[in-house]
């Protein structure tokens, strides 16, 4: 418990410092935040237009889809405002840039993840919470569950980025693979999971575990169902566990990153 509190304090210190670093260039920071906010609004507007013509899509109405966009965006935003280096992991490994992190007396992986903040992630996070409050108008239990699920989804996205980024230990320079895989995850996380069947559905439970964003959390909020919420949390935990395992297993091969550095 003491260790957890200790790491939460460290996370707070990093977040503050990362934000200070971002605010050194206020214009660039605010414009990125606003651009991402507007980008998400455009997508939601598209769905509003769609549901203006078709009231229900495979059992989903406009509230469900807006909830999906809000929960996915705020989960993704939360993940990368705090753990921005999750998006950079493949690059850090491929370029042998883990060295500096290994010189600190902290658990390597969480410490690396905390080392950077994504400016656009603020736009995602702000969009998710504000639009959910304004558009869906939840009561307190729904909003509390929404916030809890965004934390679960944040862990899911971070775990997924760790997993895909850590493949660099085994494949060498696989930045593009990690990026494409992550885009696939984001794409599938922003469409109702009920749209997909068969092989794609299997994919959504395994290689692209988007159902823990685009299905279980939405059903949990729609029905205020604790069991669905727990399945979403369990899914996130499984993805994080897989990511952590692959990272530390691959770390033994870190010399390959060193080998690449020598060519430069």
């Amino acid at each position, binding site marked *: 418990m003491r260790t957890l509190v200790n790491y939460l*304090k460290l996370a707070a210190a990093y977040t503050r*410092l990362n934000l200070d670093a971002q605010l*050194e260039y206020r214009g660039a920071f605010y414009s990125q935040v606003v651009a991402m906010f507007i980008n998400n609004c455009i997508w939601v507007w598209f769905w509003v237009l769609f549901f203006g013509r078709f009231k229900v899509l495979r059992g989903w109405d406009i509230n469900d889809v807006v909830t999906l966009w809000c929960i996915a965006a705020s989960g993704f935003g939360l993940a990368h405002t705090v753990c921005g280096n999750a998006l950079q992991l493949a690059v850090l490994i491929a370029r042998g840039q883990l*060295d500096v992190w*290994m*010189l600190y*007396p902290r*658990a390597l992986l969480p410490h690396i993840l905390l080392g950077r903040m994504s400016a656009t992630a603020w736009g995602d996070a702000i969009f998710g919470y504000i639009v959910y409050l304004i558009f869906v108008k939840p009561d307190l239990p729904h909003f509390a569950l929404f916030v809890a699920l965004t934390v679960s989804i944040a862990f899911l996205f971070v775990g997924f980025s760790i997993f895909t980024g850590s493949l660099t230990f085994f494949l060498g320079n696989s930045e593009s693979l990690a990026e494409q895989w992550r885009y696939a995850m984001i794409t599938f996380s922003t469409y109702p999971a009920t749209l997909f069947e068969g092989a794609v559905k299997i994919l959504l439970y395994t290689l692209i575990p988007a159902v823990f964003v685009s299905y279980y959390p939405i059903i949990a909020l729609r029905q205020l169902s604790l069991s669905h919420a727990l399945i979403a949390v369990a899914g996130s935990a499984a993805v994080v566990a897989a990511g952590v395992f692959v990272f530390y297993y691959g770390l033994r091969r870190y*010399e390959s990153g060193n080998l690449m550095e*020598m060519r430069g």
Partner: protein
Amino acid sequence: MSDAAVTIENLRKTFTLQTGKGLKRTSSEVVAVDDISLSIPSGQSVAFIGPNGAGKSTTIKILTGILRPTAGSATVLGWVPWTDRKKLVRQIGAVFGQRSQLWYHLPPRDTFELLGKIYELPKNDYTKRRDMLIERFGIGTFLDTQVRKLSLGQRMRAEIAASLLHHPRVLFLDEPTIGLDVMARQELRDLIREWNKEEGITVFLTSHDAGDIEYVARRVVVVNHGKVVLDDKVSSMRRQYLGAKVLSVKYHDNPAALDFPGATIVKSSQYAVRLEVDTQVTAIEAVMEHILKAGSVADITIEDPPLEEVIAHIYSQPPQPSTGEEDGE
């Protein structure tokens, strides 16, 4: 219990190198560190030098827990670096001249604050230590200036101060003076030497600068092709390894020709001669006789050859047949 800060026994590190184009790829083993053994007592300052690709940085990375060796063993302050990394790094500091731990867009003060939290330093201890380092390293004037706006010399001073914040007992410095001007370089050398003497901190330094080695270190370990080729006191390295002396002689009038075994005339003018003598070929007493015989001597200076020359001579030695290729530091 031994008082050695660092012990290395038969350390070996190999990398797998893939070469070839397209589908035709072949793997080969590159030896970066080849059977290195060393013991460094606590409080000693050691220069660990060698040409590019000699295995210096790989050795430092193993000693700081970044890389695992292929074979052999090593301990730093009693810890095995690659298995006890988290415990070890609380006791060591590391500065890489080409990598920074300071936050580029923020002032050094912010990085110091963060490091205090990373190392979990009690607030009072942290403040006291930070203030002492600010004073000793003279960084107070730019402590609140963004790192990107600092000169390289200022940045390196802040960098080393940051690495000392948690009271490390061993300091690893990988080319800390790279890119610095003469003044900044000398300031940094003074600080490192002072810290080594006053705090008894063990210093493990790699550098390509002969001045760093001469001024900061008392012992020099030269590695080449992954092996230790020389381990000696800096003061005796020139004499023992080359056995050469540089003599500058001024005569009252035109001297006779100086021609004896082991002597090379470096420069000569009407009344002055500068020559390099291999004292293993002609003993220094015999050299003096030749010089005095050549004419009436007005002045004479005997110097050791510049350290750069000694190092270049050591580096130029061919590899042993069993050693590998570059590790590409």
